[in-house]
Every structure is written in C-alpha cells, then in structure tokens.
C-alpha cells in the first residue's frame, strides 16, 4: 500500500510540472528550437526512438542513483518485498541455530509491579535461565551502565563467574550504553558501567552496540554493523578510540569461534580515527574497504543497500500462524523462533530442566509499552530486541544485501527494448499499462527468487522509468501539435 501511495505522491509532484509544460504557451524562439529538434527526431524509426528514450532514462537513473528520492523509491520496493516474505521459512533450511526471545512483556512488567527500569534481580534470573539452559549466545538488550541497587552486586558476581560452571559456557553480549558527544565530536561516547572490570576479566562477556539508523519517516531499515566510539577511562580520564561491533556482527562472529572474534577486534582497529577529537582527514572508514573475518565479509563503510535489514521474523503472528520449523535441529521439530514471556521464568520456582535452549541464540529484552523501546519497521512496529533478532538472522543468513550489476544491466536492456516496442505500437494510456504490467511480470518473479538468496533486483525504479517513458510520449505529442 505504501508503495502505491509513494508512487502516487511522486507522480503528483512531477506531474504538476509536466502538466504545466503541456498547457502553457511557449515563447517563439523556444517553439522554433523545439520544432527543429522535433523534425530531426521524427526522422528516426519509432522503435529506435523508444530505445533512445529508454537508454536516456536508464542512464539518468544510474547517474542519479544516490539521490535521496531515488533511494526512497528503491526502499519502497524493498519494503514491499520484505512484507511479502514475512515469516516465510527461508531461514529454516539454514545452518543457523533457532532463536528464543525472552520477552519482558506487558504481563511480566505488571506482575513485577511496574518498575521504572528492568529490575536487576529479575534480569539475573533470566540470564541464569539462559546460561543453565545451554544457550550458545545470549544477547542482553538491557542497558547496564548505572548502579541502581544492591542487586547489581549479585549480577556482577554472577557474570564474573558463570563460565566456570561449564566446559562450554555461552557467550554473553551486553548492550553498551552510548551517548551523543557534547562537544561536536562525531563519535559516540561509551558510558562507563559498573560491569566494565567484569567484562574485561571474563573472555565470555562482550559489549555490543545496539545502534540502528532511523530513516526520516521514522522506520528502522538499516543496521550499523560497528561503531567507532570514544571511551574515557574513569580513573585517569584518558580518552581512547575503540571499535564497538553491533550485536549481529559480534554474534555472527562468535558463532564462527573465539578466534574470529579476536580477529574482528583487531581488524576493526585499522579503520578507527586516531583520536576522539573531530578530524577532517579521517579517510580509512570512508573508503569502503571490504573487511573479512572468517567467512564473514562486510564493508567498512556502510553502503546504503548493504545495510538493509531483511526482516523475516514478525513480532506478532496472526491467529493460526506459526514460525517456520528449523529442519534437523533436534529430535523434535523446533521453531526457528520462540517468544517466551519473562514472567514464566522468574515467577516459577521449580522450573524443570529447560534443555530446549541447548545451542540456541537467546535475546533478552523488553516489549512492554513503558520501556519506550518499540520501533516502526517495514514489517510492523516491533521491540528493539526483535530488531536485533531480525538483524542477526539477516546478517548471519546472507550477510549484506547484494546487487548483481550484470543482471541489472541485462534486465534493463531487455526492458528498454520491450517497452520501446510497446510504446511504438500502442496508444499512450494502453502503452503505459501494458509496459507496466510487462515490467512487473518479468521482474517480480526473478526479484522474489533472488531475494531469498539475499540478492536484490529492483522493480520499483523500472516501473518509474515506464512512467517517465509515458511522460516523454506526452511531450512528443505536444511537439507534434506545435509542428501542426
């Protein structure tokens, strides 16, 4: 629906200028110039004229591809594609472990007496549950900067030693508190935490960045794979620049092993600015180098398309819907995604062995309304933890979204020829309708199929190109009238 509304709005603004041109009286010198141009143009065969128009439009689209308006057109197409792939079982056949979202939901929040912030004793119970359940990765999407109560000491003590109780302890990723710089610097500042020393001393604890880019329509579409941040050492006050990977990047790396995680840390150091102060010659991060860590590849500079989160996990399923089944994970069929209210963990004293978390990726976060942690996404509004879960699946499944330039050019050539033929042989409105239908029929199935492999073939921009083709047809008609 948004796609249609978007197209309609664009057409209204462009169309107004177009209509003005068609109906306004033109000065004599312009009429003479246009008549000369038109005469030469009319000497060309119809098909050739159509192909020329198509090539001009395609070149224009490529030259101005980075314009915000063209990107938004592409975003609309991708949003629609994401919606059409909502909850489909593309991850079910991947090698990724299933995921469980331990959700501090409205019910849990009310049962806990509506605390202003997430109680640390409850959070400790949830982490302990995930650790004892055998999770492989636990992402804690709760900020842990400030000391609040004596319970913090218990949390700190547990996190210091949880890894000693198991031969294969999980990796715990904690959301790092980040704040905007006050003095005009471009780097986020890491907020000191009472857990700083604990994280430093335990190799199974990691800080992760929970940052995402919010588009100007208030929708989260793009991840930020890592951040250059500034950290001020609390005792001596020394400031240093540190790379902080995102939840999805760090989790995907840790799944590949501890060695990959330490490689990630050292690799990212190469792309950091020299100091926390604003600098004009910081180029390394801007050059778009390809970073390789184990099997993972991503761009140091975050490309617009490569940053897209391919949301697949809806927060709310419709009645009688279920998440896909992860094939071959355990003896029983296991869904790729499970949401478990926090209250079913913290309020049940004698939980039986919960080995169903064995090897899973667990996200602990909040969805209650007062948490103010709910965001618009192309799928629907969802809690920040669901954005993290989707980013993890999206990044681990296929990495950055790709485009095949050769395929793009090939489809464009085919479409230019076909659309030229259509406009050569059919009258205005009929040509526009047939050309649009032809574009959709040709591109949509390929686009759907490629999307499942993490490749994007845009269909929205070619549709806009057909519209432009029709407009140029209208201009030709006006010139014909001038000649007559």
């Amino acid at each position, binding site marked *: 629906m948004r796609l249609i509304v978007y197209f309609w709005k664009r057409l209204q603004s462009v169309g107004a200028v177009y209509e003005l041109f068609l109906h306004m009286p033109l000065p004599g010198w312009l009429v003479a110039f246009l008549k000369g141009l038109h005469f030469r143009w009319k000497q060309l065969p119809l098909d050739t004229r159509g192909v020329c128009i198509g090539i001009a439009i395609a070149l224009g689209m490529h030259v101005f591809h980075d314009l915000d308006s063209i990107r938004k057109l592409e975003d609309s197409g991708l949003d629609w594609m994401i919606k059409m792939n*909502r909850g489909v079982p593309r991850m079910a056949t991947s090698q990724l472990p299933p995921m469980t979202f331990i959700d501090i939901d409205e019910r849990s929040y009310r049962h806990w007496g509506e605390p202003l912030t997430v109680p640390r004793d409850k959070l400790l119970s949830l982490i302990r549950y995930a650790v004892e359940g055998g999770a492989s990765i636990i992402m804690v999407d709760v900020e842990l900067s400030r000391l609040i109560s004596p319970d913090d000491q218990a949390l700190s003590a547990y996190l210091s030693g949880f890894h000693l109780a198991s031969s294969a302890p999980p990796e715990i990723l904690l959301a790092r508190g980040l704040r905007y710089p006050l003095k005009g610097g471009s780097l986020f500042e890491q907020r000191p935490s009472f857990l700083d020393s604990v994280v430093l001393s335990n190799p199974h604890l990691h800080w992760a960045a929970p940052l995402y880019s919010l588009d100007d329509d208030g929708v989260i579409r793009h991840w930020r794979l890592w951040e250059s941040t500034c950290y001020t050492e609390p005792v001596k006050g020394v400031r240093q620049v540190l790379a902080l990977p995102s939840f999805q990047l760090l989790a995907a790396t840790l799944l590949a092993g501890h060695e990959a995680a330490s490689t990630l840390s050292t690799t990212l150091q190469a792309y950091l600015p020299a100091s926390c102060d604003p600098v004009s010659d910081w180029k390394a991060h801007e050059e778009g180098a390809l970073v390789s860590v184990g099997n993972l590849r991503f761009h140091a500079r975050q490309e617009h398309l490569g940053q897209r989160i391919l949301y697949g996990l809806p927060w*709310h399923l419709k009645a009688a819907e279920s998440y896909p089944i992860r094939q071959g994970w355990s003896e029983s069929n296991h869904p790729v995604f499970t949401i478990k209210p926090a209250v079913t963990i913290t309020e049940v004293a004698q939980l039986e062995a919960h080995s169903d978390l064995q090897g899973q990726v667990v996200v602990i976060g909040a969805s209650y309304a007062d948490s103010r942690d709910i965001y618009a996404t192309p799928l629907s509004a969802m809690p920040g933890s669901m954005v993290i879960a989707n980013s993890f699946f999206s990044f681990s499944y296929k990495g950055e979204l790709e485009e095949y330039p050769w395929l793009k050019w090939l489809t464009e050539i085919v479409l230019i020829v076909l659309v030229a033929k259509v406009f050569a042989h059919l009258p205005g409105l009929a040509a526009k309708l047939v050309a649009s239908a032809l574009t959709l*029929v040709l591109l949509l199935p390929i686009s759907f199929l490629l999307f499942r492999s993490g490749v994007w073939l845009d269909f929205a921009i070619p549709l806009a190109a057909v519209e432009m083709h029709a407009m140029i047809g209208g201009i030709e008609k006006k010139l014909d009238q001038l000649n007559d």
Partner: protein
Amino acid sequence: MRCSILAIIAILSSTSVWSGVEVGWIEDISGNAADVDVVRNGKKIDAVRFLPIQNGDRVSVANNSPTKVTVSFGNGRNSDTIDKSHALTVKQTGEVPSVATNLMAWVVSLGKKEPQDQRVVMASTRTSSDSSNKLNIPLLPDETTLIAGKRPLALAWQGGKPPYEVTLVRRDTREVSARFSELNTTQIIKDVSLSPGVYELVVRDSASAAWREKVLAVEGGAIPEPPAELRALPENARRLLSASWLAGVEEGKWALEAYTQIALLANRNGAEENFLRALEAGQLPEVK
C-alpha cells in the same frame, strides 16, 4: 505470464506441528492448585501460575473440585479454561506464512479503510526520585544479634554520600557505645563495650540521609555452636565454614557476628573476601 504467476505461487507454503515445544503458560488458577494435574511425558508437574505449557501436555482438574485453570496460548492472544468437566491435551498447530498468503493479505489490505499498523504512543517523559546510590545496610537483617562485652566490631554499608557519621547507642539509656566519622563504607571498630540490651545503629551521610537498625546484645552463651563435624576440618576451611554456617542460621540474625569474625582476619583469602562481599550485599548462605 502464466509462468510468472506459477513462479510466484510456487514459493513455499507449509504447516507446522510442534511437539515438546512451549506454546503457552498457566495464566491463572482459581481454587486449589493441588487439584490441578499437568502431565508431561507421563510425569506429573506441580501446577503453578505462569508454568510454561508444552505441546503434548495434558492439563486436567480433579473430579469434584471447583478449581478452574486458564491456559494462555499464542503469546497471550488465546486462552482456554479447564475445569473438572473439561481436560485439555495441548496440541497447538499453525500455518507458516508463505509468499502466497502474504500477497493475498496485502491485496485484501488494499481494500481496508483503517491503517494496519496504527498504534497509540505516550508522548511524555518519565521521572522518579533518585533511588540510585541510596544509603542502606544490607549486612544487617532483622533482629541482628551480637555477643555482649568489650569486643571489636566490623561494619559495612552501601551508597550515600561520604563522609559518614556512625553511632551505636543503647536505646533505654541513650548511652553511646561508639561514634565516629568515616569516609569509607567499611569500618572495623577495635573496642566497643556492649552490655546485654537493645541498641540502635545509625549511619548518617553528608546529604542528611540516615539508616537506622536495631541491634540486640546478648550473653555469650546464646550464640549457636557450629556442627561438630566442622571441627575436624583444616583451620582455613573450618573458620570460613563456621562463619558461613553462623551467618545462615536463625534467619541471618548472627550475620554481623559472622562478618566480624572473618573481617578481623589479617590475611584473608579469596573465598573469605567473597564471603564478606556477599554479606555486605545482603546475601545470606543457605543452611540446611
């Protein structure tokens, strides 16, 4: 055209049946929970509120019991109420969304007047009084008890703004046994005179916050003796285990005494330090 339509429709569609997977929880038990049976793989589980329910579980209520159980499914969207006349064997199934069903839903949504994802938000900020770093003494549970006499005493508190003023005063006579100012949140008082009776320990910080705790002083014979089997242990283990046992018995009333015993040791090991930190945070050992 036909090929294109087929290509779109050919994209997957499937139904899932989960077994042994959590699909809901007990939302409410109205009546006697002992009358409710939750049977999983042939084994009975105690029914309590918020107990996770798995596919394959059987939930029933004993005959002649008025108890009712509500089980929630689908993230709380659906529920089923079970009573003596209606048992439930849980079997939740669901259709996995496919491109075809999503496309259909999108086409249907084009004809709807109301927006699909509209929600109400609260455009206000939140506030609270500053409870962080509040002065408190988790080391002292209710009925904290000490042995009377001329003795040393270790104390620890948390939060607040230094410097602190600490006073130990006898309630009936207002006689001050100890008064000192301190920058740190731990302190060992080498010489305190306590006679049997009720005392009040007051810690004040420089922001005028105060924490008061009642402390009882009793004759030496009242302190419980550690279990005999501890005597056979090596010195290091014996003193820590004895102190742990003392801190845990009688609902923690001897925790301060146990804390003092370990805090006075000149060369403490890591386990003893951990013991002190745990007591300072109000964590008492469990004694069976």
